[in-house]
């Protein structure tokens, strides 16, 4: 048994080494190592030990460890789910529908999926790159390809992989043979919350304010120490008890391994160049989505211009497609007016990600943390590749939207049967009122400060399971008002304004053991 384990570690190590050698950060590390070896601190007769010690002293050790840690987080294989084939088929079917819809929109509008921008078009775009909100492009005929409610229909229509009785009502996820966490499991996972430990982000009015600022000061000192250690797993552990606002940007960057190096800038520049060169139909969808969301949002409108840059470049990023564990389906498109050969064929879109209504909201909150668009881009990209892509995919992963919806539904049934019955009586699917919260990870729904507290928890516990829990807790919090109304419209009205929600105290109350 030990032998097999050893072997598998050995194989993983080889795989990591291979991947690392081809990564852009390898060159820099290798150079630094060479320099280190030539210093007197590394001795020829005690090469291994003296090198390891020197690496530790110079912080190269932490860098290498971080690399392994980030590899484990992003490259690890999807956890096999017994019904993988079923979900994969459903997703392929859904991808096809999306692609069909894109194609028919193109036919309807008389445009092409991909073409080369003319010199003047390219020039205009380049000139307005810094203020794309003033880039005039007619998008009034474009519609978002799908909205959360459309995706919900897809989920609700999933014919379970196991047969079920024909007569049973088709309005719950319960037929999905997925194992999801119950409250007891969540209490184990979110141990710091359920133990009632003091967590930053609790309303200062709840504690005496001098007490709170003492806690904050303490967390700041500790946080600074964590940052000097520069070791990602420690930063992740630190985040469990909340993060002072002024350290969040750095802590997140460290955990996500998204520090920007010079080659990141040139990479981003190449993405920009691709945006300038090709006119992809998806650009309009991105612009439309920003227009429909961030541009009208009093929390995010100031960041409109940077969001255009980040999201347009994101669509061109082939690494996203490469790194996504749930390989999305993509189209191969021949550039308009070119011969149909491999040279003129591009993957459409290069990132493989087709935005839905509200996709912008995955990126918007990062604008509060980072001034530099490039730094913002890489943090957002890593966050998306690690977590958010599962929120709009049909998959059986415990972190996928299907499992999250099921988790929410089961908990509602278990802990708030009166609400459950109320929904049933009103013929409203309980997931319907929370699907947009779940799909957008609450972005655009919670005020930014609260949202960042919530995303702290996603990173700290490396899990999205906090999202359905928060959705449930908000419903319970507003239960009395919900029970008074019967229509979907009124229920949505009760849940529309989340500006009074304090994330950490609510979650802590729900997880505290009695």
């Amino acid at each position, binding site marked *: 048994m030990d032998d097999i384990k050893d072997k598998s570690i050995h194989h993983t190590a080889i795989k990591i080494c291979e991947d690392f050698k081809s990564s852009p950060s390898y060159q820099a590390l290798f150079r630094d190592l060479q320099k280190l070896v030539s210093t007197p601190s590394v001795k020829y007769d005690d090469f291994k030990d003296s090198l390891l010690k020197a690496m530790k002293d110079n912080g190269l050790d932490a860098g290498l460890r971080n690399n392994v840690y980030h590899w484990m987080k992003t490259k690890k294989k999807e956890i096999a789910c017994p019904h993988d084939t079923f979900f994969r088929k459903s997703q392929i079917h859904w991808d096809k529908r999306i692609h069909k819809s894109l194609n028919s929109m193109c036919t309807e509008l008389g445009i092409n999926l991909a073409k080369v921008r003319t010199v003047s078009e390219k020039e205009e775009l380049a000139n307005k790159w*810094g*203020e794309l*909100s*003033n880039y005039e492009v007619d998008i009034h005929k474009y519609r978002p390809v799908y909205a959360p409610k459309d995706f919900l229909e897809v989920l609700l229509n999933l014919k379970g992989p196991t047969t079920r009785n024909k007569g049973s009502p088709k309005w719950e996820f319960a037929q999905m043979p997925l194992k999801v966490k119950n409250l007891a499991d969540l209490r184990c996972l979110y141990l710091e919350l359920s133990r009632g430990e003091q967590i930053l982000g609790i309303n200062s009015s709840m504690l005496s304010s001098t007490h709170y600022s003492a806690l904050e000061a303490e967390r*700041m000192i500790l946080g600074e120490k964590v940052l000097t250690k520069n070791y990602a797993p420690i930063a992740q552990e630190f985040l469990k008890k909340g993060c*002072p*606002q*002024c350290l*969040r*940007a750095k802590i997140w960057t460290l955990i996500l391994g998204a520090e920007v190096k010079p080659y990141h800038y040139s990479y981003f520049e190449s993405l920009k160049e691709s945006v300038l060169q090709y006119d992809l139909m998806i650009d309009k969808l991105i612009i439309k989505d920003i227009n429909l969301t961030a*541009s*009208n*949002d*009093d*929390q995010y*409108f*100031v*960041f*409109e*211009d*940077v969001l255009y840059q980040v999201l347009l470049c994101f669509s061109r990023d082939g690494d996203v497609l490469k790194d996504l564990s749930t390989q999305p389906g993509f189209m191969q498109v021949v550039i308009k007016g070119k011969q149909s050969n491999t040279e003129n064929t591009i993957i459409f879109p290069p990132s493989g990600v087709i935005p839905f209504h509200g996709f912008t909201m995955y990126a918007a909150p990062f*604008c*509060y*943390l*980072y*001034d530099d668009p490039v730094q913002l881009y890489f943090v957002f990209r890593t966050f998306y590749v690690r977590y958010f892509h599962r929120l709009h995919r049909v998959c059986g992963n415990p972190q996928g939207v299907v499992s999250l919806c099921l988790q929410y539904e089961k908990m509602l049934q278990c802990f708030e049967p009166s609400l459950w019955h109320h929904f049933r009586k009103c013929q409203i699917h309980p997931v319907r009122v929370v699907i947009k919260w779940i799909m957008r990870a609450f972005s655009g729904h919670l*005020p*930014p*400060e609260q949202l*960042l507290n919530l995303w702290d928890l996603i990173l700290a516990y490396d899990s999205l399971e906090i999202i359905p829990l928060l959705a449930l807790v908000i419903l319970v919090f507003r239960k009395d008002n919900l029970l008074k109304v019967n229509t979907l419209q009124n229920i949505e009205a009760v849940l529309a304004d989340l500006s009074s929600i304090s994330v950490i105290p609510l979650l802590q109350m729900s997880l505290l053991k009695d």
Partner: protein
Amino acid sequence: MLPKDEKFVFPDLFPENKAAKEEEETTLNQAKKGLQEFLEKNKERPNMPGCKFTVTMRVTFCTDLDKSVVVANCEKRGWMHVGPEDDWNIYWAGTQTCRSLFSVDSGYRMHDNQLINHFPNHYEISRKDLLVKNIKRYRRDLEKEGNVLAERGDSKYLHLDFIPVTFVLPADYNMFVEEYRKAPQSTWIMKPCGRSQGSGIFLINKLSKLKRWSRESKSPFQQQLTKESYVISKYIDNPLLIGGKKFDLRLYVLVTSFRPLKAYQFRLGFCRFCTVKYDSSVAELDNMYVHLTNVSVQKHGGEYNSMHGGKLSVQNLRLHLESTRGKQVTERLFDQISWLIIHSLKAVAPVIATDRHCFECYGYDIIIDNKLKPWLIEVNASPSLTSTTANDRILKHKLMDNIFSIIVPPSGMPDVRWNKIPSQEALGDFELLIDEDLIHLHEGENSSFLSKNNRWK
């Protein structure tokens, strides 16, 4: 010493007095009963002097602004809407009405249960030229006293340098030219003293442009303009930008008294953003959408969005600054803002006609530069109560509600004899900036408290 026995009862050493005592008690009880009956009978006439229970007399209010936020807030409190001729307790008036009410000709004398929302000569702070004059005088006076606050370094005031260098034109023209010559090529902003909402404002970067303007404005067609005086201020050409855009801060400050000074700062405020990316180049000097943040200006721009109105909350500004620049510098910025508010008020306090019937809510306009230093641009004595967005409406409702909670004493009836020290709960979203009564109170009893909590003195 012997331990104390709690159960021990002192023996009655004078039993003969017992009877007298009992008699006294009976008489007292009878008297109490009599009073009770008397009060019971007179319930219908609650204005009897000496009557103990609270009088439920309705507070009346009057307003000549057709603003739903004023009326709704007063009505929510159960106050009765009356006309200006009636007996009002609270008048929310425009500055004109207020001035004529206070003028000698009106002959109006307010009684103790009346409050009005302006000080008679509020223009000492709200007129651009007078504000500058008062602040300059305040600094000079402190300097004469040898006060450390007026300390200078490199010819600049170290602690009181919170307004851009400003001159009144045409009066200070020569002084302006002298200052201009120190740094030619710098940009200056011209504002008419008496106007608001960004009208009549323009930028200049050459002396010749100013000369041409003054020549043109003297032409017979524009006789009107010559009478108008202007302030010319050094333009803050390195404003802090967020998302590449310039903004200013609108903060609300309530003053319930100038002597002693009692002022409160509203925690909720907002940043007003320009719709166009900031560009300090000469080519854009005449594009006011780049430079002026006034909603009334921006509204006419093609890019204006009525969903957010170009307004970002101060809390979100703070979140962004703390996240990107750090806690310490952000806190210092907000401390400096409170500092400049207090000193601008102290600067006008000696000249404001103090009247116990008055309170006033000021709209402070502040620009932050890219070194995170706040600059006071101007003070508005009638900040707009019109709401441009949903969040704006919520903010202004809260503002009105909290103002009324602070100015009305616990009894619920406006009363100028009250000491104007509201309870902590009454403050709502206001924070105490300064209360000279409280400072004097604490000075007497606890000097260590003073050093901790009164950093503004």
